[in-house]
């Protein structure tokens, strides 16, 4: 029997391995120590800039504002507050610029900014864990779709006292629709930062080719239907759709946008009763679905499968996209065709659309609530909203006073005035599904609607089945 190479013969590579390993470990521990050191003060101490947001422009813009003064006094000694955001990498640069200037104005408040990226699934995973671990930041972003979960469990601080004690806050400056998502028992828990109404995006090239007149402010539901039917054409890979996205109850704002103008409803206003099985509601859903079932005006599941990277509108394959105004910046960057934004049309039973958005809150366990308020107040002041949203072309400001700067800028798309108009007139939060049971409802209706899309279940039967399936889930909304 032959014994393998002896340790002496074989030792070299393993000894090298050990040495390398040791060296790496030491280097790593050193670097780790450094990292933990710097993590204690990762505040924005210098003015960060990018091609999109050059430092000189940021400086000039910042200096042009009157930032006012909060009625809450700055802390006497240095405090640090942590703020959680949900920005894309590009816009987080802007955020850090804001924080830099804020710290200059408030030398005793240090800002630690966290960014989980512009994906609400990741954001929720991160911050629900922090909530469980008792380590929520002082100020945090939240969206209309999940704010009530945090509010209901007591994670946020009611802001009424701060708001009423701040003479320059001016609550009536906020578009009324933007605040509805963050209230509970008469208290307000967040200051909304953006709110966008659902509008019509139209592809001018497709409209011209089909010889259909472009949407106007006076459009009615019938005009929309005629345009959708007239622009749907072709087969297979060359097919052009009248509408880019399926009509589905998974869309949490289909009630004010699609059903209510036709006299139908999805849930009762307090989200405790299903109304989808009422005859007028079924008729409203059929108004939309008939166009799909008979003419295929929006993509079927297998057609959607052929467009995995983006929706049909972004690909230039659909005449109309029904979507929130927040989609405008990405279209501006990516669309290879001419497009515009128009008002959502009026239906036979009324004129309404949904407007939804996001907000920032102070967490109830924060130890620096005063400093957090000073930050929140300034961040979502008119100047703050112009700095963060109007000047960057993101739009959808919640303060009316921040809009003129946006409408005057080059970044505003064609039809931006219509967005402002919709936000302050016919847009509503009523009928938008945003209670704590929303994710369950969405996942419960999806399989039923799959069958409608696959044409194995009729619309009327589906509406009744949805009603009986989700009614028990609505208990969660009532109980809180």
């Amino acid at each position, binding site marked *: 029997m032959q014994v393998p190479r002896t340790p002496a013969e074989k*030792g070299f590579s393993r000894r090298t391995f*050990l040495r390398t390993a040791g060296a790496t470990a030491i280097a790593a521990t050193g670097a780790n120590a450094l990292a933990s050191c710097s993590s204690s003060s990762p505040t924005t101490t210098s003015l960060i800039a990018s091609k999109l947001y050059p430092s000189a422009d940021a400086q000039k813009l910042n200096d042009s504002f009157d930032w006012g003064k909060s009625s809450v006094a700055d802390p006497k000694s240095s405090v640090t507050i942590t703020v959680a955001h949900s920005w894309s990498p590009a816009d987080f640069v802007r955020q850090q610029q804001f924080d830099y200037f804020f710290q200059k104005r408030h030398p005793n408040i240090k800002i630690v900014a966290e960014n989980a990226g512009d994906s609400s699934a990741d954001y929720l995973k991160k911050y629900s*864990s922090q*909530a469980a671990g008792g380590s929520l930041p002082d100020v945090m972003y939240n969206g209309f779709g999940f704010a009530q979960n945090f509010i209901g469990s007591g994670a946020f601080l009611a802001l009424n006292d701060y708001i009423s004690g701040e003479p320059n806050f001016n609550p009536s400056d906020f578009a009324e629709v933007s605040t509805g998502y963050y209230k509970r028992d008469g208290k307000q828990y967040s200051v909304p930062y953006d709110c966008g109404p659902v509008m019509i995006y139209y592809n001018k090239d497709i409209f011209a080719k089909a010889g259909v007149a472009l949407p106007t402010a006076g459009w009615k539901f019938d005009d929309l239907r005629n345009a959708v039917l007239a622009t749907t054409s072709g087969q297979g890979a060359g097919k052009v759709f009248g509408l880019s996205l399926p009509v589905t109850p998974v869309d949490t704002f289909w009630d004010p946008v699609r059903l209510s103008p036709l006299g139908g409803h999805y849930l009762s206003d307090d989200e405790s009763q299903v109304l989808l099985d009422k005859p007028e509601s079924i008729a409203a859903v059929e108004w939309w679905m008939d166009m799909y079932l008979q003419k295929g005006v929006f993509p079927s*599941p297998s057609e959607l*499968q052929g467009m*995995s990277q983006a929706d049909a509108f972004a690909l230039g394959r659909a005449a109309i996209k029904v979507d929130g105004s927040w989609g405008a910046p990405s279209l501006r960057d990516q669309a290879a065709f001419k497009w515009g934004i128009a008002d959502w049309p009026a239906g036979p039973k009324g004129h309404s659309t949904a407007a939804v958005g996001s907000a920032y809150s102070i967490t109830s366990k924060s130890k620096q609530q005063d400093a957090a308020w000073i930050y929140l107040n300034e961040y979502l002041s008119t100047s703050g909203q112009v700095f963060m949203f109007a000047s960057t072309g993101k739009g959808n400001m919640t303060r009316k006073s921040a809009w003129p700067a946006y409408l005057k800028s080059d970044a505003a798309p064609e039809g931006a005035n219509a967005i402002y108009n919709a936000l302050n007139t016919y847009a509503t939060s009523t009928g938008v599904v945003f209670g704590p049971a929303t*994710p369950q409802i969405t*996942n419960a209706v999806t399989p039923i609607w799959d069958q409608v*899309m696959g044409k194995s279940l009729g619309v009327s039967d589906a509406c009744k089945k949805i009603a009986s399936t989700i009614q028990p889930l609505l208990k969660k909304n009532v109980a809180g």
Partner: protein
Amino acid sequence: MAQAAPTLELPGRRTRRTSPLARREARAFYGFASPWILGFILFGGGPVVAALLLSFAHWSLLSTPSWAGLANYRKMFADPLFYKSIGNTVYFGAGSVVLGVVTSFLLAILLNQKVRGLGFFRTVFYLPSVVAGVATAILWINILQPDSGLINSFLRFFGIKGPGWLVDEHWAIPGLILMSVWGAGNTIVIYLAGLQGISPTLYEAALLDGAGWWDRFWHVTVPMMSPVIFFNVVTSLIASLQAYTLVLVMTEGGPNNATLMLGLYIYRQAFEYFDMGYAAALSWAMFALIGVVTALQFVLARRWVHYDA
């Protein structure tokens, strides 16, 4: 560490049942196993106990847990989606493991041939399991597209009308199974590692006995690889019974819950509905399912896994 002083173990007399020796060996066992034992106590045990307790609680993550007794388990046994997801999970698990274990075994043998550029080929074959998930997803969504996708276009060439992969309730799981085989690079690596342990003398002996290709494969390669095959079957079954990221990206559980796996259902309860208590109860159901299947495999393994070379 390598130059540890030789132990004072007496040479020769290894009568296995003498108790001082056995005790010393047991001490060595605990010493060597201590990293894992400590890890289990420090990092594993606590969270596992917590998960067990949570299954008897209501907990939204955002507030403090409250006692729920057996409510979560009662809810589970009355939940039609729980049973549906168990069925889907077992279907997907069995399909992807059988197909994956066989296919990657064949690919590993292919990648063990003595040819030029072998390192390059191995790296390329490993690529699918490490490229960005979104790249793989977009590729497969297009491959499985019912009208213009690669597979159905290929079938049409032979006059066969391909199924609605991913959009038809009955074909969604088969579609996912096909896709899961694609990313089986890790299984291939384990097989490749195992193949190096087979002594060429065994093949030479078989050749001298006049054994053909199949005989050598069946009577030398497979038995010699049985510990590794066993490992791959056990671990890939566990992994595919837990799988949910693939489903989350490809079908989100649809159409009509046809691809709702237990893992996805647990994920939803935990991070979409904030119902950690129910998620924990479902996790223990998954634990039981995997436990039974795995234990069964260990029992069956006595018949076909050979450790002695």
